[in-house]
Structures are given as C-alpha cells and as structure tokens.
C-alpha cells in the first residue's frame, strides 16, 4: 500500500457518485431514490474536502457546509412531497406516478 494521495479520494468519490447515479436511475422506490441523492451529495463533499486538504485551504470545507445545507433542504422538501404523494395516490413507486404522461 502506497501513501494515500488526492487521486485516491477522487477515485473513491467517483465510485460513490456512480453508485448513487445507479440508485437514482434504476430504483422504483422514491425513498431509496432520495437516499441515492444523498450518496451523490456525499461524493461531492469527499471531493471538496480532499482538495481542501491538498491545497491547505479552508474554503473547500465552507462549500461542503453549503452542500450539506442543500442536502438537508432537499431531503425535507422531498420527503414532504413523498408524504403528500402517498396521501393522494397510495403509492411510493416512481413509475406509477404518470399523471403528466400522455
């Protein structure tokens, strides 16, 4: 095992991003789609922190805080929409919500 470089962190974050994208694109359950979005946002954060450490600059951590803020807002609104959807249509499967399809 060699020393851990920024490239290692970037590769890890890319892998996490790809797994999250697979979850968003393939799962039918909306709750798990929202969780996959959290995975993608965490991949972004790993990248930001890795470069913050490599450049010895604290700005990357500030941006990570903003990303976490967005993740919280997105989760709250998304789960609110999910509850409204479940109340009206009795389903949590993304492809059964096709009212706007022709």
């Amino acid at each position, binding site marked *: *095992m*060699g020393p*851990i*470089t*920024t*490239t*290692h962190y970037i*590769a*890890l974050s*890319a*892998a*996490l991003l*790809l*797994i*999250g994208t*697979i*979850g968003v*694109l*393939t*799962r*039918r*359950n909306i*709750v*798990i789609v929202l*969780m*996959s979005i*959290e*995975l993608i946002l*965490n991949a972004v*954060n*790993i990248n930001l*922190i890795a470069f*913050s*450490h*490599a*450049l*010895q600059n*604290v700005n990357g*951590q*500030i941006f*990570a*805080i*903003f990303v*976490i*803020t967005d993740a*919280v*807002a*997105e*989760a*709250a*609104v998304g789960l*609110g929409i*999910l*509850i*409204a959807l*479940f109340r009206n249509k009795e*389903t*949590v*499967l993304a*492809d059964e919500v096709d009212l706007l399809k022709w």
Partner: protein
Amino acid sequence: MMDALFFYLFAALVLGGAIFTVTRRNAVHSAISLIVSLIGVAGLYLLQQAEFLFAVQIVLYVGGIMVLFLFVIMLVNLDQAAKERQFNGQWWIALLCVAVIGVEIFYFVRKGASAFQMPVVAAPAALNAGGNTEQIATTLFSQYLLPFEIASVLLLVAVVGSVIMAKKRI
C-alpha cells in the same frame, strides 16, 4: 501506513454501505446501510483534518436526516412496495450509461493524475492554525457572509415548503 489502513477501511465502509443502499429490497435496511456509508464518509473527513465537518456529518446526517428518513419510512406503508419489482424496466440502459460515464471518469482521472499533486502552499499546520472550527467560522462569517445568509433563507423556504407539502388541507 496507518493513514492508508484507515483510508481503505473507511472506503470499504463507504462503498459497501452505498452498494447495499441501492440494492436492498427493504427500505429500512437501505436506510441502515446509508448510515454506515455516511459514518464512513465522516471518518474520511477526520482523516483529512476536517474535524468540524466530521462532527457536522455525524450530528446532521446520521442524527438528523437519517432519522427523518426513518420517520417517513415508518409513516408511509412500504410493505406493499417491498413486494413489487424493485428496479425500473429500463435498468439496463441506465447501467450502460453509468458504465460509460464511469469508464470516462476513470480514464480522465488516470490521465490527469499528475495534475492532482498540488504544490503545498504552506506548512501542513496552516490549514488548522488556531483550530479547524475557528478557521471555518472566521472564513464563513467574513468572506462568505452573503452566501451564508442566502443559505439561511433557503432553509426557511425548505421548512415552510415541507410543512405545506405535508399538510392535509392548505
């Protein structure tokens, strides 16, 4: 050496948790796997000397967002959904696209790996001179004050929006 060991440990936690999150049938199992993954990410923050974000990750993600997720999982009845098909009909197109993007990303990261060897601007202690939290606070409340205020407005909008969404009658 110790760093490398911990990096691979946390990377295994992150990727294993993520894979279980997107493949489990039961949403509660997915949520628990996601917690494991998020704790691994927190460990990576600690390895990179981002102590404040480590604490924020544990408190906010694991303690806040995941509890919210579990609440909603208990609130909406997922038993019916767990019995049905879990993946979309066009899952193979999605996998194909993701594989292409993955090959692309790893090709470019490999090719450009030398560009990531940053010249160290200051001594290694400069990142956390006077403490990580103090550094973040100083930068956040001087250089990034306007984005900080905009983020607080965003959170207010999210609070109002989620209450309205979850209300029975508006």
